[in-house]
């Protein structure tokens, strides 16, 4: 990695400083990172292999915590919820984001305004988003009540209080929050496409849908890639939105692994189980991040060759 240059005798201290000062300056944050991120990741993994309950302890218990974890109905509810939420959240955000970005890219008037409006939900914290949607979706306060007041009394929209549908209510709020951000990503991607390629295709007689499907969308591949990586990691970490919107309810029907980890680790005094859940969540995030890391490393290697 480091290319060593032969040191000549002139001003050795200066030279030494030139060489080592940047590295020295990085040491404190490197050490902090090592301890507070990787150290604690290691500690969490270790705790998941112990009998830790109210307080952490170091009595080795093998995979006992994982065995119990896999037997708990509430853990599987959390995992299935995450799967439903993750897939819909990523897919809908991409679809809506791409659609809006393409519309915004048609050289329309007041584009700046619209872009800001679409991006604005991202400026709200997830807790605020959750509370607002909680009111909007509450059958006796929000949308259902509004439609009833308009005269359509048969209308029913009770997802928030229906244990089978509540997770989809979470998806609605989350997609509302993030799709504007994805729009902005795609818009930047669209602006980066060389317009001469599009013109060439048009001269060749390609229709507009054809141009989008065969040229523009494929060339947005890197944007898709970063959007998916971002959204997947957001989905796995999701906690605050669910807490604010449903509190995990009705019952525990909208629990996600992050809530499981928090509740078992901190409320129920089962630190070992909480650590096991956290370890599995980290493994999931790592799996989602792996493609990006590989691509990044590969890209760097390619860069060196040139």
């Amino acid at each position, binding site marked *: 990695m480091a290319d060593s240059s032969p040191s000549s005798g002139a001003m050795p201290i200066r030279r030494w400083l030139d060489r080592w000062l940047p590295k020295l300056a990085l*040491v*404190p*944050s490197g*050490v*902090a990172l090592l*301890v507070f991120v990787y150290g604690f990741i290691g500690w969490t993994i270790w705790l998941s292999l112990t*009998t830790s*309950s*109210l*307080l*952490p302890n170091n*009595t080795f*218990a093998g995979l*006992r915590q994982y065995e*119990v974890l896999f*037997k708990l*109905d*509430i853990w599987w509810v959390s995992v299935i919820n995450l799967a439903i939420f993750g897939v819909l959240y990523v897919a809908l955000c991409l679809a809506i984001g791409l659609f809006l970005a393409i519309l915004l890219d048609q050289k329309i008037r007041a584009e700046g305004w619209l872009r800001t409006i679409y991006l604005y939900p991202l400026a709200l914290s997830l807790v605020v988003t959750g509370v607002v949607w*909680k009111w909007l979706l*509450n*059958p*006796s306060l929000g949308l259902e009540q509004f439609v009833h007041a308009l005269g359509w009394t048969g209308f029913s929209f*009770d997802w*928030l*209080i229906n*244990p089978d549908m509540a997770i989809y209510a979470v998806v609605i709020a989350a997609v509302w929050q993030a799709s504007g951000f994805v729009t902005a990503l795609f818009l930047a991607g669209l602006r980066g496409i060389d317009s001469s390629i599009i013109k060439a295709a048009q001269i060749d007689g390609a229709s507009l849908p054809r141009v989008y499907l065969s040229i523009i969308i494929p060339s947005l591949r890197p944007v898709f890639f970063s959007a998916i990586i971002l959204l997947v990691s957001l989905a796995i970490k999701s906690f605050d939105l669910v807490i604010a919107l*449903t*509190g995990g*309810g*009705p*019952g*525990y*029907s909208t629990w996600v692994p992050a809530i499981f980890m928090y*509740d*078992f680790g*901190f*409320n*129920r*005094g*089962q630190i*070992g*189980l909480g650590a096991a859940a956290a370890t599995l969540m980290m493994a999931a995030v790592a799996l989602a991040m792996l493609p990006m890391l590989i691509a990044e490393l590969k890209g760097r290697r390619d860069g060196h060759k040139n």
Partner: protein
Amino acid sequence: MTQTRWAVRGLQLGAAVAALSIGAAAHAAPDKGTVSVLNWWTSGSEAKSMNVLQDMLASDGYKMINNAVSGGGGSNARTVLKSRIQSNNIPGAAQIKGPEIQQWCKAGLAMNIDKVAADQNWARILPGPVAEGMQCDGHFVAVPFNLHRINWVWINKSAMEKAGAAMPSDWNSFVTALKKLKAAGITPIAGGGDTWQVATEFDAVALATGGADFYRKAFVDLDEAVLSGPKMVKSLERLRTLQRYEDPNGQGLSWNHDTGLVVKGEAGMQIMGDWAKGEITNAGATPGDEIACMALPGEHTGFVYNADSFEMFKNSNSDEAAQYAFARTALSPAFQRKFNMAKGSIPVRQGVSLEGFDACAQKAQTAFEAAVDNDALVPSYSQDMAENGAVKGALFDVIAKFYNDKDMSAKDAAAQMASQAQQAQMMSQL
């Protein structure tokens, strides 16, 4: 490395400054010692009560540092306690209740306060089961503050009149009243969905349906046969009945919001512990007057209690003399009256005058004495009095599942309750 150490130093310094600035609010008095008290009483009346305690200690020359941590119904304070123990900055007293007192004691952290207990004769002035809960290996390690009754129903009298419903006296007349309220277009029971609220309701239902013996065998001993037995099934069926009379749209609304609905007459009743009185009073009504209080009717009567308490820690950052003084003052008649009047509970110290307490508190005291005589005093499982967090969580999970899954039978729920509670118990004792 030094960077890290300095960061830690800085954090410690920050914490110390914060602690000092909180402490500075207390009176400057002759210094006989300091006790730091970790608690989660941050709401108006509770925080004020802690200030009263602080003042009473200050006039005796002790300094009390009030480390109040808000949020999470105490879970944030517990997290702070754990991290403070890990970093060897142990508070002199921390708000801990129920079986958790034993857990900390078994971890070898609790301080023996037998001296104060003997001075004040706790064996005589505290009710038996409460005194037992404050001990570990035969020694007192914690001091109780109050007694809350959980199995109350709060009834809006004018709503009942409007619906033409009579005050219930047993389960059937209770259900009849609910029916009439529903027919009159009033939400019969305020509540609906929030797991903690449902579990609190189930506290009352289980005692009224199965009686104190059943309650203790199920929720204290975790007897598998009783947990999955016919009385539990019957109690769960009654919970299902309650659910039918609750507002399905009440999902996610808090208990105090629901109390407000009862006071406004939009709902007829609420099943809730006596802390609901604070909300009733705030909304301009008088508990016992416009809003009647009665134990949830059923085949059995009794008293489901919740006692807030503080456990003392040894090797803490506090002075032993001040820790003793804290325990002693908390159980003094003067503080017991002031504190419990503000909090809506009744004094845990027996023989304290209830003059000036509201009608429901008087009723609670009568019910309490009767329950002690009839051995019908049981610790609330929903308020962490009967089980540790792991087992309580497991019971809550089953109740939440049953409440929200209308196709789940009471029998299945009872069976799951037995197996999941056992499993959680086993895990927490590894």
